[in-house]
């Protein structure tokens, strides 16, 4: 295409008339002249080796066709978990997050024209504080794993100690990211065993490993196996006894029935906000939850915080603004608590609208449905020959490990997928080569569980 009569829906000034007039004001003769400050030997000097642009229709048609190769619900059943879980996203949540006012704006640097997202994020902080039993929640990090990484770094910073203990029942995704995040600080990680029968954290091993150089224990509740710690308060008091911090990683849906981290004394709570109205989206965008038990700790927190204030000239009216910005990179630069800038705000708005829709009653009912469905499913699978379900004796919430007497986990996982059932992601590193993780939530019907059971009976 030559310069004449060019048009593109995203480029309002592409036509020669506009270009000519605008170049005159700039004092340049051609568009190429605008790039005369780039040394010649650095210019590309050829067209990019990419296809030419397509029409909206043709691109949409092609990409939708490609996406349809993905096997997803409702045609495929998904019982996968491990840190991303299938939950229902209410239509009203999608409606709210589809508001262009929310999704085409950016970080609320100008508070007066950004009260909408500021208040929504403040509501998110308040709701999450209630749910977690914490006093300060930031307005989001990238995901659970990076929030866990930031939490362990923060524990190192606050205590001045260089070792972190990790539950052996921690999800491999969190474990991997914590390692990447903490290694450059010179922190070392040590694993605390779990009880092979119950799947819970081994108290005795924790006692042995606590010492004066331990900055924190990071533990998940429910843990990677879906198992609930039976006395998290005791774990936390052991940790506090050695002057370390307790960092709890949670699935927020479980807090409908299970005690909140603040109630058992955790200093920092992190978690994955994805089940709060955010689609699984093949891995993201999700929502890293990060909260601290008090304002003192909040001052060492990473991430943006929104505070309540008023307009200068109207003391009766609420207004919201970003606060404690001196912790952040744009002010403190190399002294900042973290480098985080762009976060997951829209996902926090989703979570705030989700929690307010479900509300006190709906959220509790959701928890009851989830725990009942998962127990129903675990029991149903236990009737299959060659299957132990659940593998661990500890109480569980919505996920559980199933082990196979004969079959290898990889083989079962593959066979199930061929039958249109996504379930049993292998847990070989943590449990053994003949076990997989299953997740059952409110989206699964009795019929779905029967289909899972039938497929598993053939796969083992």
């Amino acid at each position, binding site marked *: 295409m030559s310069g004449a009569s060019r048009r593109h829906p995203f480029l309002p000034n592409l036509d020669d008339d506009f270009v000519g007039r605008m170049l005159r004001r700039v004092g340049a003769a051609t568009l190429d002249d605008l790039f005369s400050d780039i040394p010649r030997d650095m210019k590309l000097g050829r067209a*990019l080796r990419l296809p030419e642009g397509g029409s909206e229709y043709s691109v949409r048609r092609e990409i939708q066709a490609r996406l349809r190769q993905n096997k997803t619900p409702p045609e495929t059943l998904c019982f996968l978990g491990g840190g991303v879980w299938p939950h229902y996203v209410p239509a009203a949540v999608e409606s709210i997050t589809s508001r262009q006012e929310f999704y085409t704006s950016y970080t609320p*640097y100008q508070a007066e*024209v950004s009260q909408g997202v500021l208040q929504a994020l403040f509501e998110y902080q308040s709701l999450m504080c209630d749910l977690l039993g914490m006093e300060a929640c930031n307005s989001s990090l990238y995901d659970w794993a990076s929030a866990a990484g930031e939490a362990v770094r923060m524990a190192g910073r606050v205590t001045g100690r260089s070792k972190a203990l990790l539950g052996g029942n921690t999800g491999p995704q969190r474990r991997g990211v914590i390692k990447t995040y903490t290694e450059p600080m010179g922190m070392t990680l040590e694993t605390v065993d779990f009880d092979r029968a119950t799947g819970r954290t081994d108290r005795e091993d924790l006692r042995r490993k606590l010492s004066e150089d331990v900055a924190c224990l990071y533990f998940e509740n429910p843990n990677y196996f879906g198992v609930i710690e039976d006395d998290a308060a005791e774990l936390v008091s052991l940790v506090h006894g050695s002057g370390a911090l307790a960092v709890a990683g949670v699935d927020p849906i479980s807090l409908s029935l299970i005690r909140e981290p603040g109630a058992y004394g955790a200093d920092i709570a992190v978690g994955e906000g994805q089940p709060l109205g955010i689609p699984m989206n093949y891995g993201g965008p999700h929502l890293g939850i990060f909260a601290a038990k008090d304002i003192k700790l909040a001052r060492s927190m990473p991430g943006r915080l929104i505070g309540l204030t008023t307009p200068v000239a109207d003391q009766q009216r609420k207004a919201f603004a970003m606060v404690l910005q001196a912790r952040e990179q744009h002010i403190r630069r190399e002294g900042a608590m973290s480098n985080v800038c762009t976060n997951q705000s829209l996902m926090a708005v989703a979570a705030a609208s989700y929690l307010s829709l479900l509300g006190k009653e709906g959220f509790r009912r959701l928890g009851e449905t989830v725990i009942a469905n998962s127990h129903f499913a675990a029991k149903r699978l236990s009737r299959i020959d060659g299957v132990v379900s659940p593998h661990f004796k500890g109480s569980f919430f919505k996920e559980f490990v199933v082990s196979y007497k004969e079959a290898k986990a990889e083989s079962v996982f593959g066979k199930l997928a061929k039958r249109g059932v996504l379930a049993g992601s292998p847990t070989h590193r943590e449990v053994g080569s003949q076990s997989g993780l299953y997740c059952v939530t409110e989206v699964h019907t009795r019929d779905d569980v029967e289909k899972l059971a039938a497929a598993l009976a053939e796969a083992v």
Partner: protein
Amino acid sequence: MRKYTQASWDEPLLKELSRPGRVGNSVPSDPVISSRFKDPLSLVPQSMRRASLNLPELSELQVLRHFNRLSQMNFSVELGMYPLGSCTMKYNPKVSEMIASSDAMKGAHPLQPPETVQGILSIFYDLERALSEITGMHRFSLSTAAGAQGELAGVLMMRKYLAEHGGSARDEILVPDSAHGTNPASAAMAGFKVVKVPSEADGQVRASRVKELSSEKTAGMMFTVPNTLGLFEGEVKEVCDAVHEAGGLMYYDGANMNALLGRARPGDMGFDVMHLNLHKTFATPHGGGGPGAGPVGATRKLADYLPVPVVAKRKAGYSLDYGLKRTIGPLKGFVGNSAVLLRAYIYIRLLGASGLRDVSSMAVLAANYLWKSLDPESFPASHDAKLLRKHEAVVSVKGELPGSAMTVAKAILDLGMHAPTVYFPLIVHEALMIEPTESEPEEMLDEYAAALNDIYAKLKGGALGQVPKNTSVGKVDEVKASHPLTLRIHW
């Protein structure tokens, strides 16, 4: 100037709207299963049962009204011009939202076997190839969730590469004083000491200065091109050479890549590792602060150090490769911000090779045009006015009045337009950093420039009055926001 009044609802907090006995969504429940588990709470160990749950109680319509009202008090790209410098607030194509909302995307679980997600994996693969071609890098990892996470990945890669090549004593990273705050913060997170490189009177970094500051302690340098002043760094190649000669590596901050699409590539300038901000250059929505995506790219030399997973194409099809030989490890739990990556790929396909080049031409044209439309007496250029600008221009608000940039910013909000970035870069006095992007029509650029010129005249003449006054709330008390500090509401 047209009149503007932003919606102002004085909207209560959710919890003030709550009344016991309401619910906003119906939760499924199977009668057979619930008859079998009559007391589901008993499945939780007694010591771990939640004592009380404090969430608001509202109907579905109440929740919708609440958030819709809030949304009306939020300025956005689809409402008006949003020339926030360094943020590239361009148009976000609607069709990307439509495609990304399909069940085939939303319902995919990141642990699915690769053969069940060939659709999205093939898109990842093509995106990764396209980004490599656009930047001249060998390979990208799409896993990092935002620009700052891409930076962290990049400097960790440099650190690991050096450690494996006898350079573990190299613990300093050079960062120009004009750099985004994320650069020094990322370097510090990766365990480096930050050495500040002063920019010269013309706003650029000189290779001679970099040479002076480089030593056997230098791990490398983070360099933003064009820089945050909107200037192409004329000595970029010599700077790369200087750092390489000292034994260090070069990191390219791709935040401002919108200026260079199809024109120049960091890989050809001598950079070893870089990130892109897909929410800036590749038109994915900024989401009120996020999500973004910050893929990290590397030349062949450093490609094995990329964060996992990376996308692989083999005979059996596409898959995620976690086994990269020298990887720094994962930085995100699962894959990446996939739905953001999908949107960026759609954008690349909608523009194509010449369209992307047009994007940078139009972005640079708009930035220079708007800058030249400002009264240079009121808004003197931060640096040499004879130099071309790239994606953005930085000006000062003339006069020594402290706070004048903030006043100008608040005044333009009153006209239904977003303010430029203010007080950044830190090296510019009363800075306004203006990045109009390629999305604004000529007449909108005229209107914006006229508004700024008019505001300055009023400011100088003492006729501006209290600003802002047409926004949802008047000037927000940011001091009070921290004293006392209220981060949540108690209920």
